[in-house]
């Protein structure tokens, strides 16, 4: 079965931020220098899929998600085709393809829509929450009397359920794409030895890669080598991720053990966990934004609107959360915290909605791709000979 060449795919991916990829002449230097491409499958192979219009093969490539964008490929490219940027764009493209609503595609390809949608969502949630306000007390700060906690909890749970459902659809579509892509004799898993048992693969994914950041640490870029560990890219990511996990844990603990609306001291375990996690989150996001702003590191030289969106959103959530905490413990009562609460909760809700629709979705797709790769046991495969005819 032969593949009909279609030139439109590359132009489409360009809309997702693959700036100069048409300059690529398939030399493979990007793949030769890539610290992570165990079986020489990316970036060159991904680029070729895009060049010939092999859409199914591209969106069915878990390899897209094995790249952490260190930027070594872009530095080495003799034609300045920015293969690293292509990989990021291809991930956005794949993500938009997994999203059945088409909203992700619109957000990735139309910058103003991206900003507008988020502003509208935050405004909508703010108005929605304000509708439930119970009146403002100015002699004391009674946040949960102003906004009943139960409203936040219930709407949050409903929203979470919807988002989780959408995410499940995305997971199903991604898994199907990976399975479908096997018709090209170039999918690594098709050639693999017997897959590892699923539980071992899941364990390796979660423990080694997600929590341990193993490949992320090995994908250390040149710029990072001269930096102390706490400024490195993988560490920055780890602080944001563990910050998130911590805050998620603190919220869950509050939900389970804290009486509704009760005041707790700073050393209350859930509050302490939340505060420390918030510090990590703020550290990571602030640093990431600074590096994207300075544009000195190759991987941060080109920032897509979706990169900024996620950072700005997380940072705003963290920052408004901290202000609320300050307000909660300050004397006299900081009454400016009432609108801040509305904003904070609206931002959190917006972030939740963005989960299946934005770069945020990588928290699901990347581990899933790594899991599929572990099951295919890619590392034990010999390098596929380049140019070997398929006959």
């Amino acid at each position: 079965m032969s593949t009909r060449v279609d030139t439109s795919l590359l132009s489409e991916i360009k809309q997702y931020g693959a700036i100069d990829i048409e300059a690529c002449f398939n030399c493979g230097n990007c793949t030769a220098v890539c610290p992570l491409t165990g079986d020489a499958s990316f970036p060159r192979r991904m680029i070729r899929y895009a060049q010939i219009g092999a859409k199914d093969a591209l969106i069915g490539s878990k390899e897209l998600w094995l790249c952490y964008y260190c930027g070594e490929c872009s530095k080495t490219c003799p034609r300045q085709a920015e293969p690293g940027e292509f990989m990021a764009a291809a991930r956005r493209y794949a993500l938009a393809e997994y999203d059945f609503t088409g909203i992700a595609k619109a957000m990735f390809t139309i910058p103003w829509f991206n900003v507008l949608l988020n502003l509208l969502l935050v405004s909508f949630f703010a108005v929605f929450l304000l509708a439930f306000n119970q009146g403002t007390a100015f002699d004391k700060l009674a946040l949960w009397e102003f906004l009943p906690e139960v409203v936040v909890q219930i709407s949050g749970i409903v929203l979470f359920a919807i988002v989780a459902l959408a995410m499940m659809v995305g997971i199903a579509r991604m898994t199907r794409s990976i399975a479908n892509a096997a018709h090209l004799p170039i999918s690594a898993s098709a050639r693999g030895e017997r897959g590892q048992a699923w539980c071992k693969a899941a364990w390796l994914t979660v423990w080694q890669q997600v929590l341990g950041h193993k490949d992320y640490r090995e994908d250390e870029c040149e710029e990072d080598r001269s930096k102390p560990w706490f400024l490195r890219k993988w560490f920055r990511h780890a602080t944001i991720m563990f910050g998130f996990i911590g805050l998620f844990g603190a919220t869950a603990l509050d939900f389970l053990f804290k009486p509704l609306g009760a005041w707790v001291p700073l050393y209350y375990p859930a509050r302490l966990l939340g505060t420390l996690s918030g510090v990590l989150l703020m550290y990571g996001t602030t640093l990431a934004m600074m590096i994207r702003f300075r544009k000195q590191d190759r991987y941060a030289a080109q920032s897509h609107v979706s990169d900024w969106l996620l950072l700005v959103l997380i940072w705003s959530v963290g920052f408004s959360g901290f202000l609320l905490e300050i307000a909660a413990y300050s004397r006299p009562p900081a009454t400016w915290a009432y609108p801040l609460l509305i904003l904070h909760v609206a931002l959190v809700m917006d972030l939740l909605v963005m989960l299946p629709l934005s770069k945020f979705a990588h928290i699901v797709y990347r581990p899933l791709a790594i899991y599929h790769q572990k099951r295919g046991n890619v590392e034990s495969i010999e390098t596929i000979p380049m140019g070997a005819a398929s006959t």
Partner: protein
Amino acid sequence: MPEKKPKPETPATFARLPKEAPRLGVYICYCGGNISDVVDCERVAKVLGEQPDVIVARTNMSMCSDAGQAMIEEDIREHKLNRVVIGACSPFLHEQTFRGTVSRAGLNPYYYHHVGIREQDSWVTHDDPEGATAKAIRLMNAGLAKARHLEPLEPIRLEAKKHALVIGGGVAGLRAALDIAERGLKVTLIEKTPFLGGHMAQLESVFPTDEEARPALHELIEKVVHHPKVTIYTSTVIVATKGCVGDFQVQLRPVARGVRGVAPGIQAAIEACPVEVPDEFNYGLTRRKAIYFRYPGCHPPTAAIDWEHCTLCGECAKVNPKDIRLEREMTTFQITVGAIVIATGFQPYEPRPGEYGYGEYPEVVTLPQFIRIMAMAEDAGELMWNGHPVRQVAMIHCVGSRQVPGVHEPQPDGKVNDYCSRVCCTATLQATADLRRRFPQIRIFDLYEDIRTYGRGHEEYYRQASLSGVRFLRFHTEQGPVVIADPTGEHPLVVKVNDYLTWGEELEVPADLVVLAVGMMPGPIEDLIDVLKLSPGNDRFLLEVHPKLRPVETAVTGIVLAGTAQSPMNIQESCAAAEAAASKVAGLLSQGLVELEPFVAHVDLGRCTGTGACVDACQYEGAIQLETRVIDGKEVQRAVISPAICVGCGVCVSACPNRAIDVQGWTLAQYEAMVAAIAAEIPALVEVEA
């Protein structure tokens, strides 16, 4: 074969030993380390300095430098040296230099012998310094042995006609003609067809500047046509030649043009012609009459009759009886020229019927045809071909080039075109750029084996093609693309290819037009090769004497090559070759005297018995002949050499049963002495080898 007579006790050539005792100067060059890094030059000098007759033995970092040459000159004067032996680079490089050195010091320049101890020793024996040193000593010792037998020689001087013939009226021929004429020599330019300009006239723009082809060409044609030293004959071919460099007698056969002057009203006569044939200017895409102009504005601006297709019906002459005469034949005439420039050019490879669908599908065309299609297309709207709008174009590289025996079908002569035609890669990419610029909506696919955009500015076409969205696919020679009708019917054709860049995956490229980037083949010049005794290479292009050091001269002195008759070249390279050819011609003829190396056969009349074996053996007509002489009152036959024709190959030397012939400068006696010296035991050398 006549039985050889027993060898005489003493070789006859000994009689020609110089009278004076040899006084040898030996020089070993370091060549800036090229030699001395391997060969112990000082040791070589020391050993050779101890050999008989050697007066001085010296080394130098660079013998060809002014200081090195001055040292040799001074030694010759001071020590009264009468033989010089230099061990250095290849004689191709500096033999002439040192002949000049020796000559300036007052010695006959042929009292000097050059030993190549770089190419033949240090470069090839670099991992064995001891062995290389011993080898240098042996080679140099052989040189000494030869030097003892050197004789003074004089270059052969011939009177030269200050007149050159240029064959071919394409860009290379025109360029060469103008350059020779500007050096003050007379030039006759002949062109086989009725019009000047060659293939360049069929191009629209030329890389790497995208300059318009015809205006540039016409500028050159104007200069040539109006140059007082240039005479041009169109529709003229060579039928015979005689003679040698400086004095070639060339028989030319013109064919009548049939039309006189600008001939007002000629258009009506052309319209009256009932004969229509494919127009070769548009590579058969359009048709023309049997009386025609090549293209509007062509040179000369006179129509011509295509005698091959003209039926002599007389319709045109009825319209214009004053200027049209349907008489083809003209008389042959002779010119005498000192040198000949071959600028016969190329022809595009014509794909076999069925090769990539060529001839089967009207949508498969060659690159030259595509250039004409683009030239004739209107910019507005869509590019139409064969009644369809063109939406996708596939370019296939290396058609008729870089062929592999067993994979590609051979040409009628049994050979495949295994060479790279060099021009097609950039020309194809330039064509895609033009297509992209004028019809940006067309999707372009480029199927290649390798992209060889080697020249200055050429790579830019490749880069721009990439950037403009041309999609590249790569195939292996063994698995070339296949062109078939599109089974889906969306497009007329589909090109199937096992794409090397997609790991051999079979890809399909639907196409409305398939363009074959055909290579170059030499023009049909078999007759000319016969007449001028030229030597074509294995690729059928004409061969130069030495691809690096004598790149435009042929084995026949006085006949030089210009442009694509020699090998595939682009216009820039063709003009460079033409200019080189022109300066070679000017160098030969501008003195009115041709000097040739004296290394030709020489007959010892005392030994010649007139067997004629040498004449039978000789490959060069007129180089050696038997003449009747009267010796002691008897009429006898004796061999006589024509030094201008003899190339010094030495076949006659081996054929002569009497040892009566020698090649000057390379006599049998010299060889014997060299062989003896190579095999001789030199005490110091034995020490080196141990």
